[in-house]
């Protein structure tokens, strides 16, 4: 078993027994469900809208070279510098280089899962830069020195009391139980940073090929400020973020907000097309757009699972997943958790090390049903299981299946096996669950079905 699998099992074992955690997650997700259902019902036809989004993303991903080229030429025409980065380390070094050249000290950052993916903050802090997360949830988990719990709700696993204690310890604020006051503490702390910072780093939700723009979705206004005040702006995004046309946002913005957080559209949806243009009063004088591959092209090369690149990172599949709801976000040990994380992580970080995630699923299909761009998530988990076994078959399993095939194809042997099983049955029942039980790891949480007293063939013969 891989290290990652071992850690997953241990963490899952601990957290599923934690009733406090369970209560928190269920309360948060219940609120999400109510809001999402209300907004879904405002659509004239939710399922047709999803189909349309899936088709649009299909078009984008299956003509990715054309659209990326169009995006780049349009956005460069307005003075933006585009950097193409095949790997995480290359993207990290590119951004470190930009910040060093700018002789910057303080960096303010708005939420970007791609930055988590390439461990940007650690690299920048090691270089001696101060990096401040500005999204409230990200700010909280950064103070706790832990990764985000959820791709949309990073601090979902914390109570207001824990956050109050954290702020008291790290920021010296007075304890409070009011979410509003806690938010204002963070607001005051971060306001200074926006003004001090030399560089603002953002992620992106969509890249519009037609007009050469990046679209950023948020609620707090932190991305707006991050891209308004610092003199240099850096935007890091995966190459799969592309959408063909500006008007496509008329579909994708409501879809993302409804599925992601139960809103019609989020508070701020902002298009950036360049650095400060002549005649404008503010904005960065330099803008760097960093396009990240980091093995996305390997996922692209698998036509069966290519649609996993349609993902708009709304988090809907996490929210409905019975596994995520029990084991929580940190147990996965991955940047992207939940069903979509389990599908793409083996592609991005290695099949054998991460194949256990495909088994962290009940295959109920709730994720596929929830996905606003109709990614066939639960079938992809099955395909990953198949691929993992195909790549590195276990000899014991192969032997067992071959023996099974031989037995069921040989009636005499099969009948003999049935007789033996019937004789052994009382002994097996006695041993079940004890250390002597040969299939203990199975029977610890499940019952083995009893062996029938007579086979169907015998039953039929006796009744004729």
């Amino acid at each position, binding site marked *: 078993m891989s290290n990652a699998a071992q850690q997953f099992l241990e963490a899952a074992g601990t957290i599923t027994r934690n009733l406090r955690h369970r209560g928190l997650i269920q309360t948060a997700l219940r609120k999400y469900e109510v809001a999402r259902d209300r907004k879904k019902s405002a659509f004239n036809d939710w399922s047709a809208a999803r189909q349309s989004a*899936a088709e649009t993303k299909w078009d984008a991903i299956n003509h990715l070279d054309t659209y990326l080229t169009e995006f780049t030429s349009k956005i460069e025409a307005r003075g933006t510098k585009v950097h193409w980065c095949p790997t995480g380390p290359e993207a990290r070094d590119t951004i470190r280089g930009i910040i060093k050249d700018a002789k910057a000290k303080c960096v303010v950052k708005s939420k970007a899962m791609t930055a988590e993916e390439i461990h940007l903050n650690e690299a920048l802090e090691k270089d001696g830069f101060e990096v401040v997360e500005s999204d409230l*949830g990200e700010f909280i988990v950064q103070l706790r020195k832990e990764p985000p719990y959820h791709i949309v709700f990073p601090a979902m696993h*914390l109570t207001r009391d824990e956050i109050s204690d954290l702020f008291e310890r790290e920021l010296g604020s007075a304890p409070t139980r009011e979410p509003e006051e806690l938010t204002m503490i963070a607001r005051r702390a971060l306001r200074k940073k926006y003004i001090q910072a030399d560089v603002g780093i953002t992620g992106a939700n969509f890249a519009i090929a037609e007009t050469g723009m990046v679209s950023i979705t948020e609620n707090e206004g932190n991305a707006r400020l991050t891209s308004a005040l610092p003199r240099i702006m850096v935007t890091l995004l995966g190459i799969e973020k592309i959408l063909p046309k500006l008007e496509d946002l*008329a579909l994708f913005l409501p879809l993302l907000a409804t599925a992601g957080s139960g809103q019609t559209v989020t508070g701020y949806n*902002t*298009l950036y097309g360049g650095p400060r243009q002549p005649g*404008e009063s503010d904005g960065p004088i330099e803008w760097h757009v960093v396009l990240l591959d980091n093995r996305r092209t390997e996922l692209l090369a698998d*036509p069966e699972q290519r649609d996993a690149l349609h993902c708009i990172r709304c988090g809907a599949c996490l929210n409905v997943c019975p596994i995520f709801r029990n084991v929580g976000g940190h147990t996965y040990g991955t940047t992207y958790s939940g069903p979509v994380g389990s599908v793409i992580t083996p592609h991005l970080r290695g099949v054998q090390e991460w194949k256990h995630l495909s088994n962290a699923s009940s295959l109920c299909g709730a994720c596929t049903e929830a996905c606003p761009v109709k990614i066939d998530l639960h079938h992809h988990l099955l395909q990953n299981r198949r691929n993992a076994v195909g790549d590195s078959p276990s000899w014991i399993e192969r032997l067992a299946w071959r023996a099974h095939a031989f037995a069921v194809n040989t009636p005499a042997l099969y009948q003999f096996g049935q007789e033996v099983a019937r004789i052994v049955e009382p002994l097996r029942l006695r041993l079940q669950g004890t250390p002597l039980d040969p299939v203990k790891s199975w029977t610890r949480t499940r019952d083995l079905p009893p062996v029938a007293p007579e086979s169907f063939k015998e039953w039929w013969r006796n009744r004729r």
Partner: protein
Amino acid sequence: MNAQERILARIREALKVSAPKPGSHGHGGHGRDVAPAPVFAFQGRPVQVARSWLPPGGSTPQEHLTRFAAASAELKTDFRCVESEAEAHAQLRQIADAEGWARVASHHSPLTDAATTALARPTLFTDGGYVPDDLEVCDVGITTCDVLVAQTGSLVVNSRTSGGRALSVLPPHHVVLARKDQLLGDLTDAFQRIEQLHGTHWPSMISLVTGPSRTGDIERILVLGAHGPKKLTVLMW
């Protein structure tokens, strides 16, 4: 070969094998050898078709107004539709007195110039550049907008004609002045209008603002004024 060429080459190599179209799930999805059959056909631009499936925005100006008002109420946007510009200025003075605005921030345009003159308070104009600390201490940012969207209760500001990037997010109160004919039905209409307005010469930022700044990051409890304005007022005549 540089990085761009390398990535593009990898993409082209990957795309040599085509992927099943969406909607063909479960039709041969299990075996690698079985070619999945596409079961849908593109019907022109999907988004043009999709429009009728999205939340409706209304079809008459009166419906647009009703919807925008309803969306504003839900978003906690203070939406005031008044009879005339003079009445809008009167309302503005009322809010200014109630909140005790000491410093106002705005930008030059016919609508905002008239309003700031009517307010007659110390005003920072962002046109041509400003010091961020000066803007940060202003009590309100007063701007125009490109369009308003009935479907979502949103409005659109941009970095060229709405006073820059920060004016609408840095002060604690954002006031938007708008004319009734700027209110459109849905996002598709809005993006079309934006393209008409700016398509030949894009500003560096265009922002769809929907309600005051908000967060639910602490126990999913709604708090207004996370980083941007705590209040959003739309004055329309």
